[in-house]
């Protein structure tokens, strides 16, 4: 496609005003044309986004921030799953391979059912190996549990800190105002008591 024609279609695309036929033509050109004007596409995408700056600014209610925080809090399971997936990607798969090998060995011992001479593999060494495998399994399970706990704690910590940041100042001011009110009530009570005593003495 000619560069000029592509730019003409780009102008419509950034305004989200391409008809289906033109959208297909432009999409194909992006895929096959080695000289597609990517730079111009970027310039026009920036230009379209600039349009919003010319609008007179408006502001939402301040409580909306807490609402967003709450929505994010409700997403904690989803985020935790993402963190788990990320962690799994980052982990080297060494542990899993070792475990598979051990399972294979044990499987062979059980499956072949070949009479085994006691001197070759003593029951003690087999049970020792099983015991060792159990210990390794327990340790691997405990590692996984630790990781899961760590992720859970991380998500909870993130959310807690967010909430702490938002609500702590508000709570502080409420506590202060409660203290103030308590002292005012106490003072008023003392004054009333004194007045009653004075009235009683005078009477």
């Amino acid at each position: 496609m000619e560069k000029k024609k592509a730019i003409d279609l780009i102008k419509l695309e950034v305004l989200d005003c391409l008809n289906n036929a033109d959208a297909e033509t432009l999409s194909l050109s992006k895929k096959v044309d080695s000289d597609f004007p990517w730079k111009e596409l970027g310039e026009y995408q920036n230009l379209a986004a600039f349009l919003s700056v010319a609008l007179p600014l408006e502001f939402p209610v301040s409580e909306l921030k807490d609402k967003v925080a709450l929505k994010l809090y409700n997403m904690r399971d989803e985020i935790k799953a993402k963190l788990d997936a990320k962690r799994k990607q980052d982990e080297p798969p060494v542990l899993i391979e070792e475990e598979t090998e051990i399972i294979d060995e044990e499987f062979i011992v059980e499956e072949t059912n070949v009479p085994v001479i006691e001197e070759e593999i003593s029951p003690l060494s087999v049970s020792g190996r099983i015991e060792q495998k159990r210990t390794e399994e327990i340790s691997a399970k405990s590692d996984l549990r630790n990781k899961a706990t760590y992720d859970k704690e991380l998500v909870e910590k993130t959310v807690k800190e967010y909430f702490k940041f938002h609500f702590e100042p508000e709570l502080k001011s409420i506590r202060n105002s409660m203290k103030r009110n308590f002292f005012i009530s106490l003072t008023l009570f003392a004054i009333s008591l004194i007045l009653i005593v004075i009235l009683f003495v005078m009477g």
Partner: protein
Amino acid sequence: MTDLSEVKSLTDAEIMLKITEYDSKALEQLYDRYTPLLYTLIKKIIPEKESAEELLSEVFVIIWRQIDHFDFSTSNVYTWMVTLARNKAIDVKNRSISKVTEEYTDDYEKEKILPKLSPEIESVDLEEVLGMKEKIEGAMKSLTDAQRYVIELSYFEGLDESGIAEKLKIPSSTVKSKLQVAIGNLMKKISKTN
């Protein structure tokens, strides 16, 4: 977790990087920076206050959830954020009038809501664009009323070519050429002043 004062000094792109680690303070900073602009844009498209606020919160949820789809090679936070908010608002508007009936799934969100910016786009951030506010307003004023109107109908009202043609009672081909001339003139004006 990053300290709030530390986050405040970060660039938009650095904040996005922190959000990939699900740093809530980074998202909060992004919220503080972009909320007035995004809310203004959303409210222009969806004038009802409560719906606009609900939509703005959804935009930040999308950012939190889909941050992996932000292109860090170009790091154009401003255009990504604005385009995302605009796409979401237009989608909500179109659904309210049954213009869009497709189910809203994760794939749909990736395909239709997340911006597909050019791999060669120049990076701009909010501070930079706010510094150009007067130039942009001047460039908009330099357009004819008709040119400004067709841009408004397409970008802010989400009308397509046939929708504008029907509204203005002019042929589709005229709508196309009017939009191309209008956005072309705007580009010339802004490039000239830059």
